[in-house]
């Protein structure tokens, strides 16, 4: 046995508190950080209802909430300055962010700058290791893709990753889950599926990743037919968090690199890019790691004896791993209802394929070729290239 090859690390952060009355545990969790004076950052949408829910949830707790910041969906530099000055004036010892993705980004930016005493233009030169940061609680509500609770920070031209800015606690409470349509919910599930497929590529490297892929995949397959339901949204939010933890322990592969590039280019959202790339990627993945993927899918099927009757695992009981995953991605794409960006992505891939034709073939090129040709990756490899 090669001991050296079995050495790996796995970072399992944040702590996830999920389910009804999850919000009530926040004061109890903050006590571990000795934090009693949080600053609450809440989105403008449903602000009043959410503040009332927080007030009720924190009943009989020692928390002292001096100020609440009500923010717009898109934040500006002025907003960050205002947040920083409030943190400084009120001597807050923790931050609770309630809302959508951009709000969590704002909390991360403010936390990083405040803790290190930095200015906004120094965002890419932070040395947080020496200073530490305030405990950050992320209460996930709507449009969740898991990045809210990650080490990733996206603001203006900055696209950064710091371990210290990751929230310590992520809370998913059905009372605070906002109303999101089936399309948005499916898009979030599609991102999680993309992350899971990426991590399956590298699952041979870490057994921890493998053990997290199974429950996340199960959550997606159990609820994929009813994306608008509250239970489904809870399941997808949980899956998003789990897949985010797994992907943060995996190097970016072809699927993630391409979809992020397409998103950064402004051509389409990441979920849209994934909807076009995923079928080809799944085919590639299954042709290379067929045994591993089949083992994962059969593990999920064994665990799904108590799943809803309409779950993917019962419907595709006799189908292979590839067909099962393709069906899941196809159904989620159909529900996400993307308005025809797929041909644009495919034509872009065709152009990229032509440019890369004489280079060394990597996984990214292989995926581009597969998407461009619209055929199976193995055929593209043997035929076109």
């Amino acid at each position, binding site marked *: 046995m090669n001991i050296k090859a079995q050495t790996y690390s796995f970072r399992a952060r944040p702590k996830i508190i999920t389910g009804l*009355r999850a919000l009530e545990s926040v*004061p109890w969790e903050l*006590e571990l950080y000795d934090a009693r004076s949080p600053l609450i950052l809440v989105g403008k949408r449903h602000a009043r209802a959410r503040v009332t829910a927080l007030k*009720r949830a924190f009943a*009989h*707790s020692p928390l002292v*909430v001096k*100020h609440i910041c*009500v923010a717009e969906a898109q934040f500006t530099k002025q907003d960050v300055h205002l947040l920083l000055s409030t943190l400084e004036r009120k001597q807050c010892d923790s931050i609770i962010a309630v809302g959508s993705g951009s709000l969590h980004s704002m909390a991360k930016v403010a936390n990083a700058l405040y803790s290190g005493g930095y200015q906004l233009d120094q965002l890419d030169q932070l040395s947080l290791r020496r200073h530490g940061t305030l405990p950050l609680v992320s209460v996930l509500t709507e449009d969740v893709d898991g990045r809210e609770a990650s080490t990733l920070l996206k603001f203006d031209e900055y696209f950064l990753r710091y371990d210290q800015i990751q929230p310590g606690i992520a809370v998913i409470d059905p009372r605070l889950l906002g109303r999101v349509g089936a399309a948005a919910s499916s898009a979030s599930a599609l991102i999680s599926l993309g992350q899971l497929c990426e991590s399956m590529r590298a699952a041979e490297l870490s057994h921890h990743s493998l053990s997290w892929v199974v429950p996340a995949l199960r959550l997606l397959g159990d609820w994929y037919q009813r994306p608008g339901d509250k239970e489904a949204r809870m399941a997808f939010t949980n899956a998003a968090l789990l897949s985010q933890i797994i992907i943060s322990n995996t190097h970016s592969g072809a699927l993630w690199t391409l979809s992020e590039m397409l998103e950064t280019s402004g051509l389409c959202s990441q979920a849209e890019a994934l909807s076009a790339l995923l079928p080809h990627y799944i085919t590639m993945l299954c042709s290379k790691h067929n045994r591993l993927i089949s083992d994962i899918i059969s593990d999920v099927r064994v665990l799904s004896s108590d799943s809803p009757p309409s779950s993917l695992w019962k419907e595709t009981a006799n189908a292979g791993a590839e067909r099962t995953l393709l069906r899941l991605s196809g159904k989620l794409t159909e529900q996400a209802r993307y308005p025809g960006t797929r041909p644009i992505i495919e034509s872009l891939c065709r152009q990229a394929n032509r440019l890369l034709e004489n280079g060394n073939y990597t996984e990214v090129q292989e995926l581009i070729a597969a998407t461009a040709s619209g055929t199976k990756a193995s055929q593209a490899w043997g035929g076109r290239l």
Partner: protein
Amino acid sequence: MHIRNGFTPGKKRWKKLYVSCLLRFLGRAMQRASCIDTTIQQEAASLPDEFTISLYVYHSGPGIIMKKQPGGRLQYCTSSKDFTETDLCIIISHIEAAWLLLTFKESTAQAVARDRIRIRGSIALGSQIVRILDRVEMLLLPRLLAKRAVKRYVSPRNKFRKRFQLYFGTYHSRGVR
């Protein structure tokens, strides 16, 4: 973005009152049960004498403090309110968790598994106290409720006689100051 004033966390008075009453009743019942039930006496006998235990809702109660007396007896202490000063603290995370536990919607084992109960102190002694608590609930409650409140229901010997003694004794007993 605009800044608005914060809030004082709300109060759930009825739930707090219910939890407070039930914890007091449980405290007195544990005191009385340690006199009449040999299983509880055996469990309590291994605790050190003058050992104090608190069972309370984070962060300031309601809660109870019990004290181990020689001979495997447990004494319910009424005067002390400082739950953190005891040798062993069993802390319920919030009033809603206490409500679930004391309305027997959730068993003690489930509450521990869901991180709603934490023990500060010796885990072995904490488990003993939880076993005593389960035994008291089995003596006090009808089978249907007790099955929901404990992990594994074992019908106690002379259940009805002990139950009568327990209810009668609990009603008339007083804790020590």
